């Protein structure tokens, strides 16, 4: 499982194997990781002697690791900040941030104000939104995750003012948490959510102020919370690294991006 990569020995091991030219390590966003995992598989097929290793830990880890030289490429699920402009980057896809509910939940649309009230603890029960009288399980992301920053930015709320019932690490944990709890609400990448819904996970994406979280609304930029998915690196990449980078934005990656419901940048 790629989520649980914080275990130190594994981490040290992977760093020490970097010395080998034919291996490359990517760390960072858990939103980008599943996409890169598929791209890496295809890449390894066409470059049989190479191994691509992928670890998650959030976009900030991706940036820190690249800066420290612990990984060659970082996966970032947001635009680069001003202080990070020293790094080079390549945008591989555009994704949106979607709010998800359990598929049993009949609610189809929420407004920005309603979301703000839910996350600040002003609305605590589903009955206030026209459903059963059960407490809302508010699922929130841990600090240092770019999905969290995107969310706070949209809702216009300070993180210390959010009153969550649960805090999760990466997307996968969030999806499992919400699909296992009919009264939960959370936010994840639209790509990751659609991918899981297609696989039969009990989840649904809701509309934001009447705008559905789907491909066409991301493509015509009418969906309110959009972000770029980037690969960042420092200085000159190794041969294998630059090969992987061009592979990720090349034709071969198209079907993979499609499969993960993210949009190729124009």
């Amino acid at each position, binding site marked *: 499982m790629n989520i649980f990569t914080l*275990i130190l020995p594994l981490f040290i091991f992977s760093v020490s194997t970097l010395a080998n030219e034919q291996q490359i390590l990517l760390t960072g966003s858990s939103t980008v990781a599943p996409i890169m995992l598929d791209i890496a598989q295809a890449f390894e097929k066409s470059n049989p002697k190479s191994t691509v290793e992928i670890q998650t830990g959030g976009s900030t880890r991706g940036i820190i690791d690249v800066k420290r030289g612990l990984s060659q490429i970082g996966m970032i699920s947001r635009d680069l900040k001003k202080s990070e402009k020293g790094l080079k980057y390549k945008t591989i896809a555009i994704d949106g941030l979607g709010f998800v509910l359990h598929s049993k939940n009949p609610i189809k649309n929420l407004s920005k104000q309603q979301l703000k009230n839910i996350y600040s603890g002003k609305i605590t029960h589903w009955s206030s939104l026209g459903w059963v009288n059960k*407490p809302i399980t508010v699922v929130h992301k841990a600090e240092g995750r770019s999905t969290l920053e995107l969310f706070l930015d949209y809702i216009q709320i300070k993180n210390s003012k959010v009153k969550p019932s*649960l805090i999760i*690490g990466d997307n996968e944990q969030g999806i499992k*948490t919400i699909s296992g*709890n009919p*009264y939960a609400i959370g936010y994840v990448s639209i790509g990751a959510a659609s991918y899981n819904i297609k696989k039969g996970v009990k989840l649904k994406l809701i509309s934001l102020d009447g705008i559905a979280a789907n491909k066409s609304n991301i493509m015509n930029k009418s969906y309110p919370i959009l972000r770029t998915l980037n690969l960042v690196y420092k200085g000159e990449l190794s041969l294998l690294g630059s090969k992987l980078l061009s592979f990720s934005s090349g034709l071969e990656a198209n079907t993979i991006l499609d499969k993960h419901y993210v949009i190729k940048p124009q």
Partner: protein
Amino acid sequence: MLLSHNKFESYLFKGLTLVGLFFSLSVFVVLFFLIRSGGHFFLTTKISETLLFDQWFPSEQLFGLAPMIAGSLLVSLGALLISGPLALILAFFYFYICPVKFKSILNIFMDIFLSIPSVVFGLWGLVILVPYLAPLFPPGQGLFTASVVLAMMILPIGFKTFVATFKTVPDEWILAAKSCSLSEWSVFRDIILGEYSRKLVIGFLLQVTRAIGETMAVLMVCGNIIQFPDSLFAPIRTLTTNIALEMSYATDLHRTSLFFCGLLLMVFVFFLLLLSRNESKEEYF
């Protein structure tokens, strides 16, 4: 020239001693590393305040560890309350009552249990246990769920240690008890609990030691909210999950505070092991 047999053996012995020494010393290396990395935090903040303070907002330079220390202790205690008695009874059943035919089955079952990676227990808790608990006791993840998952993980350790303890009970006692036609229950109550209770403590302590350091399984089912739990089902965050959640992006003082969390854990485990060593005059290890 070939080495003589004796010479070879003495080299082998010396070599293995060195390897053993190296591994024992590596504990001190880890400790040194933790103190060096966490020491800065120790020097720049008032430790007494940190340990008792309940506000954890690293971005605002607030490092209160009290809720997480409480979380770690409570979840380990909860796990022990579930697993401790269960392991003891299971071990008693295995050693004194279980027919020989089923003994190996139970033993293999425990070995398998012991070798399951902790992440699998966490995943089991997240996708099987939590959906049952969520509608009944929202939000479903919290102190209770984490305790149950941990209890399953530490059960085989308790089981193995208790069986080892039972092996030291003199056969004559059991034979004498049987010849007096005492029931199994009396044997359990009067001999095991009555005369051997002090030696059983080690089994409980080793279970807690395992529980307090567990990270990934707990991370998936404890809810990760930093607070003192106000009910059995309230979400909590432990010292270990705090490190796992925040280490990836922590810098500067925040980073050293996480190393300090690790140092605290090491101190807890050290004391637990010291206690269990004191309790066991017989050597199992």
